[in-house]
């Protein structure tokens, strides 16, 4: 008996990854959103958004709210587009393995299951949190790491809607020990947007573009005080040349031009001036109180998570902290996390932060 082929869908709040289990083809990545062009009433679904030349002018609608799937009108279009254009197989011939956030509500699970079977006709369906899959991948890369041999570790998932510290044992999540900070990449982008709009040029209508700029210019400070001092002197100052809508789609960052360097071309440019926003925005993950959110920062949340796990697991958990998610790719993230975690973890424990 041949087992049916399985479609794997990593269904994230910001983007999806889709592919066939066990296949050598790389997974396809696309936004989990539908974009509408302002003015014209035209819709762009999933990967069509990326392909649209003037993507920064689109206003995006997402099926997720606070990290959970709530809007089927939007998700349905995105999935149809993905299943139709990115798979060689028909859903009716496949099973579906899908990721979901920890503590997904039964009501959401029920509507998801109905969709999967009634709308798309999959043969079978399984949903599971993404973090055990990340740990599995890491185990395959570092099989000799003592914690990995036991499937023990903390997956720090710094995602779009929130940030999780997920302790695991035997490759399985320890549900009572999971900790969540209610801030993720989406809030950071909006915060960044607010700051540059107030300080430089109004970008409130251009979330997609601001998100791209954030990805290019933001970093996590490893020494905040010295970066702030350097920032006052202009060391971190950047100019971001906004797209002109003709030749440039996304724009680009450059060091500020000196007085004599301006050309006629420069006079027509719209330039966003960036300074301490570059690192004060990701700083929120480490100090949510900076935006008024009364929650612990990431290092303390990891400690809370580990302390909620059985005591004998603590040394191995601290020795294997794995960083995943979009925000974890911000330069400096891992260094800073390691530095702060080291200071909080007992001296005789090994601490690590990898990605």
């Amino acid at each position: 008996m041949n087992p049916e082929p399985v479609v794997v869908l990593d269904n994230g709040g910001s983007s999806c990854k889709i592919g066939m289990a066990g296949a050598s083809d790389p997974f396809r990545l696309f936004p989990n959103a539908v974009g509408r062009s302002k003015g014209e009433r035209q819709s762009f679904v999933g990967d069509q958004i990326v392909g649209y030349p003037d993507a920064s002018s689109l206003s995006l609608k997402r099926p997720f709210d606070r990290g959970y799937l709530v809007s089927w009108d939007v998700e349905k279009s995105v999935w149809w587009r993905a299943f139709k254009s990115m798979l060689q197989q028909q859903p009716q011939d496949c099973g579906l393995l899908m990721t979901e956030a920890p503590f997904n509500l039964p009501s959401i699970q029920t509507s998801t299951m109905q969709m999967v079977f009634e709308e798309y006709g999959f043969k079978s369906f399984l949903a599971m949190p993404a973090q055990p899959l990340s740990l599995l991948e890491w185990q395959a890369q570092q099989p000799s790491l003592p914690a990995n041999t036991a499937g023990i570790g903390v997956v720090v998932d710094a995602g779009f809607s929130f940030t999780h510290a997920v302790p695991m044992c035997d490759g399985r999540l320890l549900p009572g020990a999971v900790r969540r900070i209610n801030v993720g990449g989406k809030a950071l982008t909006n915060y960044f947007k607010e700051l540059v709009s107030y300080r430089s040029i109004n970008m409130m209508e251009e979330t997609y573009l601001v998100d791209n700029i954030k990805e290019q210019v933001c970093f996590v400070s490893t020494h905040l005080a010295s970066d702030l001092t350097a920032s006052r002197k202009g060391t971190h100052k950047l100019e971001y040349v906004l797209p002109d809508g003709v030749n440039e789609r996304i724009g680009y960052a450059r060091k500020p031009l000196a007085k004599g360097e301006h050309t006629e071309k420069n006079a027509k440019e719209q330039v966003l001036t960036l300074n301490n926003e570059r690192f004060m925005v990701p700083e929120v993950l480490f100090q949510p109180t900076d935006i008024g959110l009364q929650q612990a920062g990431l290092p303390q949340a990891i400690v809370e998570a580990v302390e909620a796990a059985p005591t004998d697991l603590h040394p191995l958990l601290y020795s294997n902290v794995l960083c995943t998610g979009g925000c974890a790719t911000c330069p400096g993230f891992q260094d800073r996390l390691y530095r702060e975690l080291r200071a909080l973890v007992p001296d005789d424990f090994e601490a690590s932060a990898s990605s």
Partner: protein
Amino acid sequence: MERRSVRSRKVSKRIATVSAAERENVTHARLEALENDDAAGEGVVGDSDEEFLLEESDEEMEFGKRSKKSKGAKRKTRAMLEAERKGPLTFASLLEEAAASEDPMAKEVARMYSAAAAGPPEGAAPRRWCSVCGFAAPYKCVRCGSRFCTRKCYAVHMETRCLKFVG
């Protein structure tokens, strides 16, 4: 420079201070706004979802059997019908529903979701950053409680932001 943000001051001239409760409301509203999808008026699940729907026949075109069946009338699953009945959903409403549910499983998941929230910050007092320029801010606006670092930033604050959200 037409893109330059021009922020009008919709602030009452009277010198009023804002109560702690009001300040908290402002902070809360701001945190909510940071979770919004797109600017101005479009919430997480808006009322104009219809415009985003593709034609059903187009969506299902390449799934042979399906497309014949669904030509013409729009087929709806139970989940969709239910969604229509309830209107746009938010996670908060679903969580509330689960917490109040008769189903012990739903209740338990809702409890665990809430228990997983990272606790309040420990140790050091919150850091104070200038609401205008972002650098360390030793001073506080007596009207609204926003922080500022220098006379210059205070002037900008009064001109643009003070009580803007509550005025």
